[in-house]
C-alpha cells in the first residue's frame, strides 16, 4: 500500500503539483487506513461522497498547500448533507442543512472531508468514553483512552489515518487528547476562529482549532481557519498574518514563565522530570525560564464547572425533540415529549451537567455561583495579563498523568474535570494554548508540553514549539 499520507504535507503538495499522485490516491489511502484501523473507533461517519469530491477537484492549485489533502472534522462541527451527531443519541440521525464557517473555509481551500470524528457526547468529558458510539482508542496503547473530548480527531491523527483534523476546546478538549496521543493541538485565542456551526457547549469558552502531526502543519492550517465572521459576533477582526512566520527562529532571550502550580505534586513524577529536561534545554539555548507564583490557578476547575455547566444547560435547551433529532415515542403532551426525549436522548454525563447547570442558574443561585465564578474568572485573567507583562510565554505540562486506561473515569463525575486541571485556566482567560509532544514515559506513552501565549500571539507559541519539535 502507498505511504503518501506519512509525508509532510509540503512534500505531498509537491507530488500533487508534479502530477505524480492525485487527490483520489490520498483519499483512497486514508479510507483504507481508516478501514484497517476500525478498532480505533476514531470516526463516527465516513463521507461516502469523498471519492467523487476528489475526482471533481480539477487542476491542482500550485499556490494552495492544502489542495486535495484529506482532513477529518470533529462531529460537533456541522457539515452540510453529512451527518453530525455530537456523539449523541439525540442527534444520531441529524443531517445539517448548512456548513460551519470553518467547513466553508476547508472546502474553499479544496481540502477533502474524509469523515466526522468520535468525541465525548456534546464534548462533555475528558476521555471520549461518554460517546454514544463507544470510546475511540489510543493508538499508542489500545487499552488506553485517547483523551477528550476531541478523542477521535486525536486518535485519527496519531494513528496516521489522516494528517489533519479539527477539534474543539472548551476546557482542554484539543490540548489534552493531543497530549495523550502525542500530536500537536492548538486552541487558538477566543475569537480567532468563528464558532458559527460549532454546536454550542459553553459559548464563552468554546473554540475550534487544528490537530496535526507537526507544528508547521498546525500553523498552516490555522492560517486557513481564522477570520472575522458576521455570523459569530464573538469572532474578532484582525490583520491577516502568517502563523508560520516565526517557525525556525532562534529562541535566544525569550522569557518564559513556569507557574509553581504546574510543577506541584499534582503532576506525575515522570512527567515533571521530562518538563525539567525541557527547561534545561531551553536554558542551554539562552532562553530565560523563571518559576512564578500565580494566584487562582487552583480555582480554575471550579470556575469551569460552574460556567460550563450553566452555559451548557442553556445551550442544550434547544434539543427538545421538536425541530430536529430524536423524539421519544408514546408521548401525550408537549411537556412529556420534552422530558422523555431528553431523558432517553442524552447520556449520563450530559444529563448531570444540564441538571447541575439548571440548578446553578435558578433563582438566587445565579448570583451565588455563576456571578461569583465570573468575578474570579476576571481575576484569573488579570493574573495571566500580569505575568505576560514580563514574559513572552507560559509553559507547563499539558496533563498531570499520561493517558489512563479505559474505564478508569467511569461513573466518577469528578474525575472527568480533574484530567483537565492544567489546561482549563487558559479557556477562562480566552488565551491561546498548544500541546507539543516532548517524548514518552517508561510505558511508552506520550508526554505533552503546554505552551500558553498572549491573546492573539499564536505565532510566538509556534516559534517555541517548532524549536522543541526538532529535539524531543
Amino acid at each position, binding site marked *: 500500500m502507498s505511504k503518501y499520507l506519512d509525508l509532510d504535507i509540503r512534500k505531498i503538495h509537491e507530488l500533487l503539483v508534479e502530477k505524480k499522485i492525485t487527490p483520489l490516491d490520498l483519499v483512497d489511502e486514508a479510507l483504507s487506513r481508516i478501514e484497517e484501523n476500525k478498532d480505533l473507533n476514531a470516526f463516527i461517519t465516513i463521507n461516502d461522497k469523498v471519492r467523487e469530491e476528489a475526482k471533481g477537484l480539477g487542476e491542482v492549485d500550485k499556490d494552495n498547500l492544502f489542495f486535495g489533502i484529506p482532513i477529518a472534522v470533529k462531529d460537533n462541527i456541522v457539515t452540510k448533507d453529512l451527518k453530525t451527531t455530537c456523539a449523541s443519541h439525540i442527534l444520531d440521525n441529524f443531517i445539517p442543512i448548512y456548513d460551519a464557517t470553518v467547513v466553508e473555509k476547508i472546502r474553499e481551500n479544496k481540502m477533502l472531508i474524509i469523515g466526522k470524528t468520535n468525541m465525548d457526547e456534546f464534548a462533555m468529558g475528558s476521555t471520549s468514553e461518554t460517546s454514544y458510539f463507544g470510546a475511540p482508542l489510543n493508538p499508542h496503547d489500545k487499552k488506553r483512552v485517547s483523551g477528550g473530548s476531541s478523542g477521535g480527531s486525536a486518535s485519527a491523527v496519531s494513528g496516521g489515518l489522516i494528517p489533519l483534523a479539527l477539534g474543539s476546546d472548551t476546557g482542554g478538549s484539543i490540548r489534552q487528547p493531543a497530549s495523550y496521543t502525542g500530536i500537536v493541538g492548538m486552541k487558538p485565542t477566543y475569537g480567532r476562529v468563528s464558532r458559527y456551526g460549532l454546536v454550542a457547549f459553553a459559548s464563552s469558552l468554546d473554540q475550534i482549532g487544528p490537530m496535526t502531526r507537526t507544528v508547521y502543519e498546525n500553523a498552516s492550517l490555522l492560517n486557513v481557519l481564522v477570520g472575522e465572521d458576521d455570523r459569530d459576533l464573538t469572532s474578532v477582526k484582525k490583520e491577516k498574518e502568517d502563523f508560520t512566520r516565526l517557525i525556525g527562529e532562534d529562541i535566544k532571550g525569550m522569557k518564559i514563565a513556569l507557574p509553581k502550580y504546574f510543577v506541584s505534586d499534582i503532576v506525575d513524577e515522570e512527567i515533571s522530570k521530562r518538563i525539567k529536561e525541557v527547561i534545561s534545554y531551553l536554558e542551554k539555548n539562552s532562553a530565560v525560564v523563571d518559576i512564578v507564583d500565580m494566584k487562582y490557578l487552583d480555582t480554575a476547575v*471550579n470556575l469551569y464547572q460552574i460556567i460550563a455547566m450553566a452555559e451548557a444547560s442553556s445551550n442544550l435547551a434547544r434539543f*427538545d425533540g421538536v425541530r430536529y433529532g430524536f423524539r421519544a415515542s408514546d408521548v401525550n403532551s408537549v411537556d412529556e415529549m420534552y422530558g422523555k426525549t431528553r431523558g432517553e436522548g442524552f447520556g449520563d454525563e450530559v444529563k448531570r451537567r444540564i441538571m447541575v447547570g439548571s440548578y446553578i442558574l435558578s433563582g438566587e443561585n445565579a448570583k451565588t455561583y455563576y456571578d461569583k465564578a465570573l468575578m474570579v474568572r476576571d481575576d484569573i485573567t488579570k493574573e495571566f495579563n500580569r505575568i505576560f507583562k514580563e514574559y513572552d510565554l507560559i509553559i507547563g505540562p499539558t496533563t498531570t498523568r499520561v493517558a489512563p486506561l479505559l474505564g478508569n473515569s467511569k461513573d466518577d463525575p469528578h474525575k472527568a474535570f480533574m484530567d483537565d486541571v492544567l489546561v482549563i485556566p487558559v479557556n477562562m482567560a480566552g488565551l491561546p494554548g498548544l500541546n507539543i509532544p516532548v517524548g514518552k514515559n517508561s510505558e511508552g506513552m506520550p508526554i505533552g508540553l503546554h505552551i500558553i501565549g498572549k491573546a492573539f500571539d499564536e505565532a510566538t507559541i509556534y516559534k517555541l514549539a517548532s524549536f522543541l519539535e526538532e529535539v524531543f
Partner: protein
Amino acid sequence: MDRLSREEVLHVAYLARISLTEEEIEKFRVQLKVLMDDIDKIKEVKDFDDEMMYTPIEDNTRLREDVVGEMLSASDATINAPKKNGSFIEVPVMINE
C-alpha cells in the same frame, strides 16, 4: 454515603426538563451530590474583586447591519423534524379544552 434527597434530584430534573427512571434517580442522588459539593467550593474563594468577565472579547458590542439576509426555505427548515405535516412541524396537543 452522602447523597441528595429524591425530591432534590426530581427538582433539578424538572428544571432541566429531563425525565428520569427510578434507577437513574438513585444513581444521580449520589453523583449530583458530588458535583454540588464541587461547585460549592467557589464559596471558599475570599480574595477577589467584583468585576465580572462574561466573555474574553473586549469589544462585545459589535452588531450586524440590520438588513434582510439569506433565509431558509420551509422545506429546508423542517427537513430534520421528527414529525411533520406538509411544511408544518407536528407536536402533541398543547391546549386542553
